[in-house]
């Protein structure tokens, strides 16, 4: 795929939807890409929202980090592209 196209947003744009699943804000969370090992904030991930769900890709290697599909009364979350996600429990939400 070409990486020069700018049809992505970033992790900030998925934060609202993810807030319905996670108690802690994910944009400031650090995640490691399972493909290239880059560790970045989730806000920095490239986000694709054209399909029926949301796909977050690594900003370094474009490997899929997370997929989220919202179907009536059920949310499907695939995070196999992330080795880990490190969330700040001391973070003040406001």
């Amino acid at each position, binding site marked *: 795929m070409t990486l020069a196209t*700018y*049809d*992505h*947003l*970033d992790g*900030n*744009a998925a*934060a*609202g*939807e993810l*807030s*319905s699943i996670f108690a802690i*804000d994910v*944009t*400031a969370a650090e995640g490691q890409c399972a493909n290239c090992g880059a560790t970045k*904030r*989730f*806000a*920095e991930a490239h986000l694709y*929202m054209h399909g029926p769900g949301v796909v977050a890709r690594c900003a370094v290697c474009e490997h899929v980090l997370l997929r989220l599909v919202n179907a009536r009364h059920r949310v499907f979350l695939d995070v196999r592209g992330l080795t880990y996600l490190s969330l*700040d429990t001391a*973070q003040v*939400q*406001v």
Partner: protein
Amino acid sequence: MWRVGTVVALRDETATARTITLEVPDWPGHAAGQHVDLQLTAPDGYSAVRSYSIASAPNSQKRIELTVERLPNGEVSPYLTQEVAVGDHLELRGPIGGWFVWRAQQTEPIQLIAGGSGIVPLMAMIRSRASAGSSAPFRLLYSVREPEAVFYRDELEVLAHHDDSVSIDYAYTRASPRNWPRPPARIDAALIASATWPSNLFPTFYICGPTSFVETAAGLLSANGNSPDKIKTERFGPTGERK
């Protein structure tokens, strides 16, 4: 969790952008830079969710301001900028996002870089700085199509003349005022060099705008020796509506 806000005021910023003031009784407060998701539901049950940045500074009132730019083929923004009326109820989720935020405890130099309506969350930071009595040096580079497209023009004008530690540079992409030194153009290395804090001051950057704008600005800043850790970005979609 969805909350209900009541529209209490409407103000036109430009010919195509409007600021909506919402009163949200259970609003928990917010930080400058955060956004909300608005959900509009049609009578037939079809609903659409869009993200909008909060323009107002954190305050103790249960009020927030959103500035919405009307997009020609938008599904939600034409309604928000043309049809919504004082007294209407809007469903919202938020405040959202803990990364693209500026907090009053930050004392380092701040460089804000806005592309078009990307000014909105950065304006919340500028307003927050003022309301918190912060003396952090702020600098804004505002890239905008033409002078008529500038949001918050009068407020920025006052700031630029009365507050020595907020400096503002405009860059026009399509039409500039008469005798403007720089011909209309997109941001480039020369502009970044002349209108942003140098890397040796270790500023924190907040860049908000369309994806191509953000990528260009962030790339130029990295090339100038700024650490990627100090560059925070938020991208608007190709349509400007983030979702």
